[in-house]
């Protein structure tokens, strides 16, 4: 699993790629946090899930963890492009109430 990032127009984009499970999430957690710490001037952050081919409940914990971190800097966060399976999990767990889908 890896993260591709981009910073354009004061927006931090993080594109997750790969299978998001307990094992793989540990690999990208620190990378995501460093990206946030390096872009504290961002107006908002967008997490792009188009490259996520699988996600279990680990993804919920991962996204809420990043939400909390971004919230400490006052940066709102949005998610985009979840697959059908990922969307089902994020919907049922209420993640979209914290980080709206765009």
């Amino acid at each position, binding site marked *: 699993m890896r993260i591709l990032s981009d910073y354009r127009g004061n927006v931090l984009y993080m594109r997750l790629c790969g299978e998001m499970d*307990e094992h793989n999430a540990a690999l990208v957690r620190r990378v995501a946090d460093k990206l946030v710490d390096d872009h504290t001037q961002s107006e908002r952050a967008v997490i792009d899930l188009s490259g996520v081919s*699988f996600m279990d409940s680990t993804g*919920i914990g991962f996204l809420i963890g990043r939400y909390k971190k971004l919230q400490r800097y006052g940066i709102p966060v949005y998610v985009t492009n979840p697959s059908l399976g990922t969307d089902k999990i994020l919907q049922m767990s209420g993640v979209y109430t914290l980080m709206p889908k765009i």
Partner: protein
Amino acid sequence: MKNYMKLEISARGENEGFARSAVAAFALPLNPSFTELSDIKTAVSEAVTNCIVHAYSKTQDGKIIIECETEQTSTGGVLHIEIRDFGCGIEDVEQAVQPFYTTLSDDERSGMGFTIMQTFMDEFSLTSIRGEGTRVEMSRRIGEEDGAAFSKPPKSIRKVSNA
């Protein structure tokens, strides 16, 4: 016609992907839809992750046994999955299956594992004995998505603890 497989794996994180893919591959002869396969993989991933993270606390060199059986029916088929470990067991299964309940909240755990297993599968049961291990049994009907959804009987959810 019934088909059967048994898989014994080490309780290691890198086996999570292998376990869910192996079960999905075993179910393929029933011609599952993309959604059915995705649901099955997610449920298996949740159960296997629980074994690694909770039963063996990520440190012990434990074993996980996965047994699957498929049954062909006139409308499609059924996949039965049993996943068991020989770890610490669950103290209170009623509490463990509550949405968002987790014993490891500092660890970015969502507490949604059992909720997802129950939601994504047609049948679910959990048996745990403290100090001996935990067994999850799940079934999913395959090939009934078109039109049959409303005639499905209510989900049977059995939770048993022998603590």
